[in-house]
């Protein structure tokens, strides 16, 4: 069964039919061809599928596509600003805050959400914000460092 839905996706309006039983993860990957949102566990544990729903991070595998109705969705593909890397993305590159990269989109989404809510987080607050994003490669050290550096560069920008 399909249902008509209307929502904002990465800044653009989308009006389409979605299967009523499809998760947001599969809808984004399959119907919208946005494969940056990853399937790691499909049960809300790993965070690889994290997206922004009205600027708050959610596990898209725990959400039905039809629940996007009337909301604003941002995926990793919508994080760049004016064709340039977002400061969080830039710091992930510069600090070597990724290895296999499979958790990276979800991790960056969580970090962007954190910095929008809390522009100067402590290390503990950074760790707390990404506690739902599992990474098996990095030990999180460089990820925490990159998010801290992004916060600094954003605050310089504002000042």
């Amino acid at each position, binding site marked *: 069964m399909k249902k008509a839905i209307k929502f904002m996706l990465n800044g653009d309006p989308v009006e389409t039919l979605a299967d009523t039983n499809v998760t947001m993860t599969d809808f984004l990957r399959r119907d919208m061809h946005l494969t940056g949102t990853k399937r790691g566990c499909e049960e809300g544990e790993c965070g690889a599928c994290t997206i922004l729903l009205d600027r708050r991070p959610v596990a898209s595998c725990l959400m039905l596509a039809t629940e996007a109705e009337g909301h604003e969705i941002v995926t990793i*593909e919508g994080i760049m600003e004016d064709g340039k890397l977002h400061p969080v993305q830039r710091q992930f590159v510069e600090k070597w805050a990724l290895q*296999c*990269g499979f958790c990276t989109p979800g991790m960056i989404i969580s970090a962007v959400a954190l910095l929008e809510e809390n522009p100067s987080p402590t290390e503990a607050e950074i760790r707390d914000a990404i506690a739902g994003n599992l990474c*098996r490669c990095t*030990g999180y050290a*460089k990820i925490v460092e990159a998010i801290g550096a992004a916060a600094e560069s954003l605050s310089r920008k504002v000042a």
Partner: protein
Amino acid sequence: MAMSSKEYYAEIEKVYKKPEDYELAGKGNAYVRVDAEAKVTGRAKYTDDIDLPGMWYCKLVRSPHAHARIKSIDFTEALKVPGVKGVLTGKDFPEGHNMGNPEAFKELADKEPICREIVRMVGDEVAAVCGVTEEAAEEGMRLVKVEYEVLPAVIDPFEAMNNDAPYVHYKNTNNISMFTTMIGGDPDKAFAEADYTDKHYYMTQQMVHAAIEPHGAAAIYENGEWTIWSTTQGAYVTRFWIAWGLGVPESAVRVIKPHMGGGFGGKLDAFAHELCPAKFAQQLGHPVKCILKRDEVFLGTRTRHPIAFEIETAFTKDGKLLAKRCRHILDGGAYGGSGIAANALSLICATFPYKVDNIDMTARRPYTNKPASGAMRGYSACQVHFAHDVHIEEVAESLGIDSVELRRKNAITPYYTGPTGLQFTTCDFDETLVRAAEAIDWAKRGEIPRGSGTGVGFAGSGFMSGTGFPVLVTPRYSSSSTLVRLNREGYATVFSGANDIGQGCDTVMVMIVAEELGLRMDEVKIVNSDTTLTPWDAGSFGSRVTFLGGNSCRRAVGDAKLKLLTHWGEEWGCKPEDITMKDHRVFVKGDPEKNISYNEACFGYEEKNFGRCISGVGSFAHDGDKDIYVKNRGNYAPAYSFSSSAARVEVDMETGQIELKHFVFAHDCGRPLNTRAVEGQIEGSVLLGLGFTCYEECKYDKDGHHLNPSFRDYRFPTALDMPSIQTILCGKPDPDGPMGAKEAGEGSTAPVGPAIANALTYATGLKFHRLPVDPETIWRGIRQKKLTGAIDVGLEGLEEKFAKMPDVKPFH
């Protein structure tokens, strides 16, 4: 004597850049990963992101029983599901074409692509269903009716070795898939003469790799050949097994490794999820994809061998290690595959990083009806160094010698030859011991009272830098080969067979080429891991990629560079080695007449040679004995890395809650090619080691059902659980390593567990013999100590189990 690989390439070394001129190698922030931008933008394509026109989906039907005979399979209802297009059983694959390692031990080629008659573990593949959508395939999969005759299963490795145990594969073998012996010196004499001897028991658990990307593959069949994208750690090895499993020539199969979401050893073997979509693609004329769900990854892929240890050591009273006897029982699970190296590695790892000349060691690998064990990062080393280094700590206490001093006293020194023929080369193990001890303030450990809840622990280890032997294709060389092409439009292309599974080897190869040619990183293009486009490489395992692949790449670019500079040497009347390549220029220092751009240099060569492009070929192979797994003697690797680690923990003595406060890791990896990359490997190793020590364990009921196949129930450390980590890079450039480097990926996992365990021992005053040491274990241990005074935790029945083992003649 045959020429060594080093002699073969000696000629090109003269044009290698000198270490003092390196602009990229050894630096931390001189460049970034070549795949970083693709990964932070979500553009990097992984196997599940492959979406081809007309693509269908494959799902696997799995056994609910740990051991059973398949009586019948009924597809009637499954085939009625709209969109279900086809089904497969074991009979669709040629009989006898099993996955494993037939050329070394034919019995270990024991995994059918799909089970034909017997299932040997919960999750074993029984059938496959293809549907036009993932949902149709899944619905069809659920409706396949399989009738089983349930057989008795054996879950415990010791029970599996009993004479009357049900057999997993072969009758009258006590279920032992491999029995390995290593003997050296005169252990009996050494034990007789020793001032101090003892015997201890330890046990490690079943753990999984848990790469965040699940396994999967996508296949297309066109013009009589397959193209298969797979989550593999070795495109060539996977190609070998897919061709073998399908019964077709290797030339009819192309395997491409897209971006990989982690491997850790779990993606080395060949699996049904690769063979089934390939078969469907041929039968049905559509591309077909098969991506495993998380529980399938737990049930149907690979795990780390649980090992039970009996360790006896002999020391002089002043702490010199004279001899070691040990017995290792490795739970092999249901199949062989990449498990082939487990026994030999477990024994080899017990012979270093501490010198021991007299050894008597055996390893048995019984089959059980559980998921198959295989390679996992720090293969056998993590378990062995946990047991053997916790043991060192206990010996130190008994002898009244500081444990770091005991380690230093027995530490491997440069160019030592081990009792099984390991030829150590560069070694700065002592430096790692000293600097890690300094950094954790080891000298002041005594000021912390034992059992106070605060503890500091220490451990040392070593690892092969570039395993010289293939795990899954023998007797082929475990070589690596690379091509480099210089382009007159101002760039170079490197065709690298090395498999980047996330560790960053694509970046290493690009850096080496850029460094040698004086180009920027973005002026070097990489073509990677594709059996049609790139030359042979044995895969990403055994910490071989930087060492073997890196050397191979440097020789390839050296070969091209020598051709280019020989030409310009003739033009300019100088020697090739007098010419410098830097900042996109080719020049003789101090001579403005002899200074041209890289583009002009390449063009000049081509003009003179009728347009022939400049290309270089390089390879690296360990000059070792290919029968090492049969003889169990010889040198395993071209170099060895060494590390020490130290942990500071706090334990809540009421609840058993553990906090790892700080971790120090000192690693001798020769010259680190990129310090941030090496730190990243080490920080990741600390996560795996903490998970291994305090969190992770696959649990089973008595019938072999996995009780926690999800990230909810199988927990590993999050960002909140990880400590601050201090990395100390030690050692000197290794003369045989690429630009002086040794491994940093796997050896770094080995000393983490024992350091944490030793810290927990100090903090609690208990002695831990079994992993994981989780809060419940500690809480129970504290309670037991209060009630009975007993401090040994996790020893239950282990000594008795060893004593009761039936006498089986060694083989393999």
